[in-house]
């Protein structure tokens, strides 16, 4: 690696780390314990972690196969589908939330149908999960698809010559080969789900304990007390770092 690249690398790191660090230097340590253990903060934290995990799992279950289809089906038109998958990324989250609302809301196309069965999504925790999945899944799809294409189908072909059918090859070849990429894609998706704000507030609303996740709580708090909001962001950052740095299984990082 050319040594000169350290300069832009450090600049890039500074651009990310300095603002965040500066933010947290503003937090008054004396107020911190009270702020972080307030029921509002704890409720929000619990809700965020719970919904974040569920929507990451959902992203995996739906997005994983989608990535595989994109990378391996070899069908025409996959270029366009690949573009479509990125839509939630481009749309301002609020518009994404609107889109979900218009589809699944009481008057929405699918929402009306669901209403018949007594299922109402808006204002529920399920809506939070859906909103988060909507914005987080593309990360998983894009990350996995790239890795699948880079890895190519060689090993899956070897598995076929050893008599392994598609499922076995998938379980015993594709999945283990993808573990490192899966790890980083899951982390991306989880991080995005954890930070999701606009789509959630639009589609799910904001009610403590039910739909007010940590980012929503932070935003609401910021309306009256910016410093308290910053302190709450600290909570979010700590949780995220915990997941990313500590909890992320080593195995998933791949052999270095």
């Amino acid at each position: 690696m050319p040594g000169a690249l350290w300069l832009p690398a450090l600049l890039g790191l500074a651009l990310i780390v300095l603002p965040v660090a500066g933010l947290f230097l503003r937090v008054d340590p004396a107020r911190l314990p009270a702020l972080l253990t307030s029921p509002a903060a704890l409720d929000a934290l619990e809700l965020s972690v719970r919904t974040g995990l569920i929507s990451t799992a959902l992203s995996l279950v739906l997005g994983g196969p989608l990535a595989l289809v994109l990378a391996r089906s070899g069908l025409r038109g996959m270029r366009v589908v690949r573009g479509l998958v990125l839509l939630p990324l481009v749309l301002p989250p609020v518009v994404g939330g609107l889109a979900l609302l218009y589809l699944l809301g009481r008057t929405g196309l699918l929402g009306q149908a669901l209403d018949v069965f007594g299922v109402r999504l808006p204002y529920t925790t399920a809506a939070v999960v859906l909103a988060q999945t909507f914005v987080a899944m593309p990360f998983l799809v894009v990350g996995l698809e790239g890795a699948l294409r880079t890895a190519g189908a060689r090993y899956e072909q070897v598995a076929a010559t050893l008599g392994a059918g598609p499922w076995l090859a998938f379980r015993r070849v594709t999945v283990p080969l993808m573990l490192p990429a899966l790890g980083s894609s899951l982390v991306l998706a989880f991080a995005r789900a954890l930070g999701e704000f606009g789509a959630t507030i639009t589609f799910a609303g904001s009610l403590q304990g039910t739909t007010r996740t940590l980012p929503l709580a932070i935003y609401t708090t910021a309306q009256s007390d910016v410093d308290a909001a910053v302190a709450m962001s600290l909570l979010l950052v700590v949780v995220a770092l915990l997941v990313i740095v500590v909890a992320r299984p080593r195995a998933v990082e791949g052999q270095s």
Partner: protein
Amino acid sequence: MSLRAEIEVRRDDFALSAELAVRPGEVLAVLGPNGAGKSTLLSALSGLLVPDRGRIELGERVWLDTERRVHVPTHRRGVGLLAQNPLLFPYLSALENVAFGPRAAGAGKVAARRTAERWLSEVDAETLAGRRPGQLSGGQAQRVALARALAADPELLLLDEPLAALDIDAAPAMRGLLHRVLQHQEHPTVLVTHDVLDAVVLADRLVVLLDGRIVEQGPTREVLARPREAFTARIAGLNLLPGTAAAGALALGDITLTGHVAEPLDEGEPAAAVFAPAAVAVHRELPGGSPRNAIPVQVTGLEPRGDVVRVRGSVGDCAPAADVTPAAVADLALAPGERVWFVVKAAEVAIHPLSGGSSGA
């Protein structure tokens, strides 16, 4: 179950067109120069590559029929392919790699492990069982890959240079292993190799592929003993000089070679003189005395070959070789560029008819 295949593959500037049949228990060796299409052939047989046109059958089952749009995917063919690149699964240990096939065939964990252990020890790699492919040397990886292919116990075994990268002890050992395994199985096997020894030891029949086409085919020893193509002759370690038949002899420009004529030959028919390099004596001056075949050549190269030196000469388009002792090389002061006589007794020369107008060596 016998294999019958008729395959056509077209690529930009390469076309493979081959037709083969391998009987149950039979081993077919495929020889040919680099880029002849050997690996392409195996890809097509395994189903990893879909030929542009063709038909492949194993026993009653039709694996491919481009006309009827039949294409059975690889994993349903029960085919085993050892490719040129070992491609061991990098995240599995050597043992787990070998156990993959048995597991895929439905064996339990313990049974698959036992099978894998047996095959690993067959390829003399039991001590490597726990290693990841990244921790294996080139030859070790090759052996594990061989064990993996054999452990899957396929109905059609395809081996692409299974003995490449092996050391001088491992190669004969693996060849012996393959010999044992292949001899006792009822399935057909196709074996690609660069080493005629593999063909001789392991194969019942032999196919020579040149530029995507099969140019020779038949029982191994027969083809090697009576090579019709210069390439075949070279792999057989024999000299083959193509010319036209004359009464009990071969006309090669203004040279006439006499020898043993195996089959009746019409005068003027294309034919070739075949003889072993060991039968060739090298002389500076044309020797007198009893009638002998003497070919004037220019020395193009000297290659030590174990305890003899192979002297390569050129005459016209041909490059016959002579094996002589190092002492003779010194005595004769042989060196590239020198003009000498290759002398061979008529009793050592076999004259064969040549199918079609194959070109010189």
